[in-house]
């Protein structure tokens, strides 16, 4: 019950924030991005942290979410929630497909296959005029603001809800049989199989859920930007962030990706605004390499060590 109470409190807090007047709209823009990374990092960790399979192709899943939303919006003026649902379902299907193709092979082949999916999908989208092709598509936001003052504030709150939802799913997986099985697969797939764990099925489930959540993170983007175009949507920098945040935060527990995402995404916003865009990718890259080498258990691991040494 305690966890549910925390979630309710957090959501109420976000609701309050979104309704507050006199706040610079940029806060909600930045907040949207930070929350998006919380979802992406959490989603990545379900397959990468719990099971040990490294997804390099995060933008492919984001893009499936985003472009599904665009198609649903353009063809039938689908409301936001339908867009999000559709994006999640198709991205989950992509996860299942890639998994079926490569999860029987070694981990690195899965990783390379995820990169392949990014490029193939990007090429397809580049040549697909209905969604704007390489030049992109302008979109007009609907007037449906619910009870918020601006569309941006509404999207901000929606993202907050999605973020809490994703983290709840990750927490549920972690404490369930699925989580136990995934950890066993990560530690020793052979031993897991011989201990009765249906390794392929479990990996596929994790891959599907992970992909679906990434699609959900991507689906609100077209409405948020009023615009969609392939180059930024398929940007591989999403991968380095979605991968770096859980590793830096700590991959063994659902709170790790949240910590990593909140810290790093905020840092990225500051760097982008004050210095440059390229530098923010460099920051994540350098931190990732540093942590992987020196502190592989992430911030969570460092906290644990500090607690143990001060006993």
């Amino acid at each position, binding site marked *: 019950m305690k966890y549910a109470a925390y979630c309710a409190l957090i959501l109420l807090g976000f609701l309050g924030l979104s309704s507050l007047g006199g706040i610079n709209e940029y806060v909600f823009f930045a907040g949207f991005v930070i929350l998006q990374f919380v979802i992406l990092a959490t989603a990545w960790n379900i397959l990468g942290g719990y099971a040990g399979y490294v997804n390099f192709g995060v933008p492919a899943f984001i893009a499936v979410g985003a472009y599904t939303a665009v198609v649903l919006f353009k063809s039938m003026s689908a409301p936001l929630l339908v867009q999000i649902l559709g994006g999640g379902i198709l991205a989950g299907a992509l996860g299942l497909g890639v998994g079926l193709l490569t999860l029987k092979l070694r981990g690195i082949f899965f990783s390379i296959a995820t990169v392949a999916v990014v490029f193939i999908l990007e090429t397809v989208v580049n040549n697909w005029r209905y969604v704007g092709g390489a030049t992109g598509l302008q979109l007009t936001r609907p007037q449906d603001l619910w009870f918020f003052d601006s569309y941006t504030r509404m999207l901000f709150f929606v993202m907050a809800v999605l973020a809490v939802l994703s983290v709840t799913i990750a927490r549920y997986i972690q404490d369930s049989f699925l989580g136990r099985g995934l950890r066993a697969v990560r*530690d020793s797939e052979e031993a897991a199989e011989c201990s009765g764990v249906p390794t392929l099925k479990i990996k596929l489930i994790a891959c599907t859920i992970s992909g679906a959540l990434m699609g959900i993170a991507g689906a609100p983007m077209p409405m948020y930007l009023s615009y969609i175009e392939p180059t930024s949507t398929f940007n591989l920098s999403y991968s380095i962030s979605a991968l770096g945040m859980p590793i830096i935060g700590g991959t063994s527990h659902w709170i790790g990706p949240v910590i990593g995402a909140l810290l790093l995404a905020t840092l990225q916003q500051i760097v982008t605004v004050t210095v440059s865009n390229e530098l923010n990718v460099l920051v994540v890259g350098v931190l990732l390499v540093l942590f992987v080498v020196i502190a592989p258990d992430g911030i969570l691991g460092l906290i644990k060590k500090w607690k143990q040494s001060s006993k």
Partner: protein
Amino acid sequence: METILEVNNVIKQFGGFTALSEVNLHVNKGERLGLIGPNGSGKTTLINCISGAYTDYQGSIRFDGGDITLLKAHERTKRGIARSFQIPRPFSSMTVMENLLVPFAFVGGKDGPEQQKEAMAILQGMGLAEKAFVQSNQLSQVELRKMELARAMAAKPKLLISDEAMAGLSGTEVDEVLEILFDLNKLGITIIMIEHIMQAVMKFSQRVVCLDAGKIICEGTPEIIVKNPEVQRAYLGD
């Protein structure tokens, strides 16, 4: 005597190399079977075919009245075949107790307080009870070997395959592990033991099978095997 495992005409090839050629083996319920043979004779390959690590072999395998030829490893574990690994494969991020809870969860279906008690009982039988909440990557070699066997036991097997569980252990440690295997057999579990330590095999086995270059060259009681000239040639060369 009831047959619990039947290996019929199993052939396993890796590319152009034939690791097992037409192996036929019957194991009786409750038996203690020793499997010996020089390095590269196909012992581990045979075990991998029985446990389901390999499913692309020719021939058929029947276990406990059912055909398991096409079943994946985890399905065979659920039917009652458990194994330990030559090089221990602990779930290193988990404690010893959590290691055992994995088969409890996935074979038995439950991992609650009752199963934890059962796990403790298994660990006590192996002398590992005090290490129950230690992270498994901190165990010594012999403790790891014992945990492998404990984890296999948590799957409540009818057949336990011990793959060189004693390799690299000291004299007293070998005796410890041997005693554990005897105790498990007394509970009614059929045991196939692969070992290079001849005294252990001879002491433990009721029947011994010798493999060489993918074929069974001799089968019989330990006394017969030891005197068999084919076996001697396989180990010592011509």
